[in-house]
């Protein structure tokens, strides 16, 4: 079963607007990571938030983590056409295997 699941599956907004994507997970974690994938390319790491952090910023990205609700959100402010991509959250289990488990992703389209 999926550890991380993104919501919505697809999001289409106008350039300049903010985009918010959500991720829910099932088991305890020590960090949660967000990745971006441009069409036909590999994934690129965006940001990592640790379980003892509640919010983290990187440029136009803002990530929040609520461990009590087992959820995270990724906010992209002042969106640009180049932000068009799929966004995935990924979580490593707290115990056991080191594998990162990815969700199905949110397909973000920024309309000019």
């Amino acid at each position, binding site marked *: 079963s*999926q550890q991380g699941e993104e919501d919505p599956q697809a999001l289409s907004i106008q350039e300049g607007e903010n985009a918010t994507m959500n991720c829910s997970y099932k088991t305890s974690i*020590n*960090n949660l*990571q967000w*990745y971006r994938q441009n069409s036909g*390319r*590999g*994934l*690129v*790491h965006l940001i*990592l938030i640790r379980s003892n952090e509640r919010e983290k910023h990187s440029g136009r990205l803002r990530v929040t983590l609520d461990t009590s609700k087992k959820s995270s959100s990724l906010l992209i402010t002042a969106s640009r056409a180049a932000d068009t991509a799929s966004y*995935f959250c*990924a979580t*490593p*289990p*707290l115990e056991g*295997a*080191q*594998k*990162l*488990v*990815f*969700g*199905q*992703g949110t397909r973000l389209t920024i309309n000019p």
Partner: protein
Amino acid sequence: GAGVSQSPSNKVTEKGKDVELRCDPISGHTALYWYRQSLGQGLEFLIYFQGNSAPDKSGLPSDRFSAERTGGSVSTLTIQRTQQEDSAVYLCASSMAGGRTGELFFGEGSRLTVL
């Protein structure tokens, strides 16, 4: 090289043939992952190597799939007797210490099409 390198970038094969996909991780990265991504879908974990430890093969979908990592560096994913449902992009990633502690660096993937 500076990043994770995968080859071939595209592979078209006939059903029943064997294929080998190669991954060159970032130098010094001890952890190496293989994932599979079907069109428009998320990433499906296949296998994980960490240093000299036994690999985590829990994601391999059938015994037609196998992978090895020689000398703690280059990895080869082999699919025997390919089926049409094997068509997907196969992504390799490497990491300094494993996903529990840090980010993964991905290659551009090998797109496999089984006719």
